[in-house]
Structures are given as C-alpha cells and as structure tokens.
C-alpha cells in the first residue's frame, strides 16, 4: 500500500465501528457480563486482529456483529455496532438478515462441522447466492464453481457436487471461505479460521485470506489467539482481556511498543514475532471467572503493578500515541519494569 492511500483511508469513516459494546448472559437465574466496553474500528481494505486468551469474549464479539448470539441466554446490554454509521443492534431482523451472508460474511472455527452434511458444497453456496442476489439457479451454480476456483480448490466443478464429508478439513474451510465471499461482502469476519487445521494448511488458508482481501477490498476481522498470525496478517490489533479491550494499536506499534501489562506479558511469552505457538496462557494466574463483578481494573488480579487505584477504579481506554489506546492507569509502561 502506498503512503498516499494510507492518508486518504485515515480520514475516511471506518466501515465497522463497535462502541462500548456490553453483552450479558443470563445463566440459571444469574446475569454474567461477558463483554464490557468493547470498542473497535475497522476500515475498508484492512485486517484487524482480535486477540486474547480463550474465554475473553472474542467469539461473543464477532457473533454480536452478525447479531447471531443465541438470545436467550445472550442479551445485548449496551453500546452500538455501526456498519457505515447504521446501528446493527437496532436494525429490524429483516434488514439484519439481508446483511448476513450479504455485506457481512463469516467464517467459523470448526470447518469439520460448519457445513451441512446433507447438501453438496455447491448447493450450500448456491443457497446463499439465491437468497441475496437475483441470479437464476443455473447462474448461481456457475458462480459457486467460480468461487470454489477462487479459493483454490482443484477441479472446482467436481468439488461443487461433493458432500462435505468427501473433503478434508482444509478443503472444507476453503468451501466456508467461498461461502462467506459468495455475495462480495464488505466485511469478512473470520473467527479463528485456522485453529482446527494443521500448521501447513493454516499457512495456506491465511495466505488465501490475505490474497482475497487484496483482491476484493473487503475489510477483515480476524479473531485469533495467535500473535504470530497477527504479526503476519493484520494491520491493526485489538487485545482483549476478560471481556474488555485492554489495548488497541496498529500492529507495528503494538509489537514495537506494547503498553499494557497484559500485552507485554503476551509479547514476553512469544519468543519470536513470527512464532505460531499459543503462549497466551503462560502469564501467571488466570482470567477472573465471569460471575465475578469487577470493581477496578480487570487485569488487577494478575498484574505485577496493581495498586489501590487499580483495584478500585476501572481504567478508561485512553489514546497514548497515534491510534494507540491503552486501558491502564500506569501506561505507558517500560517493558523492563515487569
């Protein structure tokens, strides 16, 4: 990307803007807050990485954007999700349906089970095409084959007639990507698209996604718990911890100058920037369980720098550099102090 383009994009409104999103789960009579104050911005043509330990709310965030949280038990408790300024949370279900699979495509973590075993891969893509476009069934099938070709499946016309169980995990994930891209979405949400795949296939799928983003100009929200993946593929990063955003920055800035103690812990746990090993869980202590009501900083129980203010007041997400926001009373912190 040339410098001039970056400047133009920096001034344009983001495609997706999540503001202060809060999500509750009503579980057996109690209310558990799964997300609190989640905010992020995603511009066209960019890839935003959403990282954090297992259970920190990455999937809840991405499903919320599709408004696909099961309700009940899920409940949107506050905030807004703006797609080009329109709040998805207040959209009528009909209009939301038109966006799902239309302007927003989604890829899930589990390629082995995300396709319906009783329909062929082609039929499943065709179904999405027919719902969103005025194509005839014949034209839709041709387009489905084209899409399967686009995602790099060999002999796509034959594959279109295969049932999911006849394909490998990597091939099924390619079919899922084709499905998500079927109606030229502006936004592609990929919730850990490679976690279930083995390493070589992971790399291929990530390359494919990068390639497709460049070709289609879609914005990509890439959920992962792998900092190596973030370093390779993302322009910007949002770091989540226990249902909240703790740090937000362009990828380079985050890796060069991580400012939140949690992020620093993550970085320290990753020996090389391109390592693809999940080390997020090597920070001492564990995530507070969701039924605990947090008073101060959500990281206080594991933070070596926690003091009385940290334990009594929630640190706001503050800009601490160009596009670099941190939720920590003591930020910016020198890495050496931890």
């Amino acid at each position, binding site marked *: 990307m040339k410098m001039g383009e970056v400047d133009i994009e920096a001034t344009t409104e983001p495609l997706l803007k999540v503001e202060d999103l809060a999500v509750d789960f009503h579980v057996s009579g109690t209310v558990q807050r799964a997300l609190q104050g989640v905010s992020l911005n995603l511009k066209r043509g960019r890839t935003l990485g959403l990282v954090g330990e297992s259970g920190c709310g990455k999937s809840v965030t991405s499903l919320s954007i599709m408004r696909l949280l099961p309700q009940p038990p899920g409940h949107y408790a506050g905030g807004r999700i703006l797609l080009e300024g329109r709040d998805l949370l207040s959209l009528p279900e009909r209009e939301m349906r038109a966006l799902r*699979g239309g302007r927003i495509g989604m890829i899930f973590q589990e390629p082995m089970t995300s396709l319906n075993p*009783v329909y062929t891969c082609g039929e499943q893509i065709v*179904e999405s095409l027919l719902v969103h476009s005025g194509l005839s069934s014949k034209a839709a099938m041709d387009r489905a084959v084209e899409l399967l070709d686009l995602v790099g499946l060999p002999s796509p016309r034959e594959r279109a007639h295969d*049932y999911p169980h006849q394909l490998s995990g990597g091939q099924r994930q390619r079919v899922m990507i084709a499905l998500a891209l079927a109606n030229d979405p502006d936004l592609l949400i990929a919730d850990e698209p490679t976690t279930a795949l083995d390493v070589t296939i992971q790399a291929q799928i990530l390359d494919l996604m990068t390639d497709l983003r460049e070709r289609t100009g879609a914005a990509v929200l890439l959920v992962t718990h792998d900092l190596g993946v973030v370093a390779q593929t993302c322009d910007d990063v949002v770091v989540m911890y226990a249902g909240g955003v703790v740090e937000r920055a362009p990828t380079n800035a985050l890796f060069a100058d991580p400012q939140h103690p949690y992020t620093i812990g993550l970085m320290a746990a990753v020996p090389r920037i391109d390592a693809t090993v999940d080390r997020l869980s090597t920070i001492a202590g564990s995530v507070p369980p969701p039924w605990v009501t947090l008073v101060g900083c959500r990281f206080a129980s594991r933070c070596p720098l926690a003091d009385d203010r940290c334990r009594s007041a929630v640190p706001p997400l503050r800009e601490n550099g160009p596009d670099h926001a941190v939720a920590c009373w003591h930020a910016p912190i020198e890495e050496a102090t931890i």
Partner: protein
Amino acid sequence: MMTLVLNRLIISVPVLFGVLLLGFGLLILVPGDPAIVMAGPMATPEVVAAIRTEMGLDEPVLTQFFRYLGRMAEGDLGRSLISNKTVISELGAAIGPTTELMVACLIWSIPLGIALGTLAAVWRGSITDRAIMAFSVAGVSLPIFFICLMLIHFVGVQWRLLPFIGRGGPLWTMDGLRHIALPALSLGLIFIGPVARMTRSSVLEVLRLDHVRTARAKGLSEPRVILRHGLRNALIPVVTLVGLQAGYLLGGAVVTESIFSYPGIGRLAVGAILSSDFPLAQGAILILALAFILINLIVDVLYALLDPRVQTP
C-alpha cells in the same frame, strides 16, 4: 442404490428362513391336534388317524419340515381347515385391505407427528410444546384397544358420524373412505406420539449444531433454517424410529382390525389362531413377518436417500 437394495435383500434371506422355521414350529409345538380340528368333534379315532396319515403328521419332524419348505417354495401354503379354501386365496383377499389400512394410517399420522414434533421443538418450553408432548404421551401410553373403543363409542355410536364395522369397499370410494376412517384414526393415534417425540428431540439436537449457525450466517429466514437445515437433518433418526416401530404398527393393526371387524390379515390371523386353523394362522404370520422385512427394507433405502454419508456396503 441398487447394491444397497440387493444387499438388504440378501441379508433378509436368513431372517426369512427363521420366520419359516418359526411358522413350522408353531404347527408342531402349539397344543391342539390339527387332525382333530379337521375331523371335527364327532369324529371317531379311526377317522382322525386317517387324516393324520394323509396330512403326514405321523412322519419324523425333519421330513415334515423339508416337505413344508418344499411346499412353501411352490407357494403352496395349504388349505384353511375351516373354510377349505387355499390359504393363498384367503391371504390374497385380506392383503389389499390391510395395505389400505396401513396407507390410510401412515399418510396422515407420520406427517402430523413430524409437524407437531417440529413445532414443539421450535417453541420448546411453551404451552404449545407441553400440550403436544402431553398428547404424545397419552397416545403412547393408552392401549390401542381403548382408543378404538372410545372412538367407536363416541364417533360411531353416540354421534353417529362414521361407520365402525367392516370395510366399505376400495379406498377410493366414498364408502371405503368412511369405513376406513375410524380404524386408520385409531392406529394413527398410537403412531403420532413416538414420531412427534422423536422429531422433537432430534430437531432440538440438530438446531444446536454448527451448520445451523452457518445457515443463519448466510442470512436465511428462520423458517428456512428450521426446515432445510434443522428438520431435514433431523429426519434421519426419525426414519429409523419409524422402522423400529413397524412391529408395533403391525401389532396395532391386528388389534384394530379385530375390533372394527376389518377384513385384513390381522383379523384373519386372530380368527385362525382362535379356531386352531393352523395353516391359515401360519400363512398370516408369514405375511406379517414379510411385511416387517419389507418395511425395514424401505426404511434402509430411505435412510440412504436422506443421508449422503451412508456408504453403500
């Protein structure tokens, strides 16, 4: 698909042999002497002995069995001891009405059971769900003869809406339809319950699967998600259940036909057994066993049609 059918047919052969063995055993083991039945209560011992020799009843069991198999192979099931008509012709006259009864029962009860089960699943926990489940449990736990008698008592006798004795003619005539309505209703009522309950639990299970979330993520409408990605997949275990219930259905048909004096295989079997008409009883039981095998064959084929993961062996 043809390989599957052939395979199932081959597997059916030992089952068929077992059924034949059972039919033969029935003749040997059951108390009561066919020769005495045939000769009538007034016959002298000499007449009975003569009949016994004629029927080959005093020969070794093994010889009798092979002779019996030989006759079966020729399609000769013997003659009824009571009417003296061939068993084949008696069965031939009864098989049509029983088939009609089965069709008339299944054609409404299976779709209705599936529809009710799906509604219960979609509105789980609601009043509708509870009402449907209560209805199903009642259908399963009430004995079939009780349902028949209640229907006869109210619909037939008190309100005089429908006839409840015999058969009015072929299914496509008005009289045929009116006569078959109550038996088909009774038999169907016991069938709805299991189908509805199985459909409900199967749909609930499928709706939790990942591929349903994918269907929603495609922007499909909720009815479409439920029917095409929920129910369609949920039908696979339901079909299996229907197959397993085939015996239950045939047993129900025996009771229903007897109560409504409906001239089918079931009533024929009961009448033959009560009057110790061994060849006819044997024939009727053979036909019922064949029907059981046939229903299971159809179920296997349907199963393979519904689930592309089923490999033809």
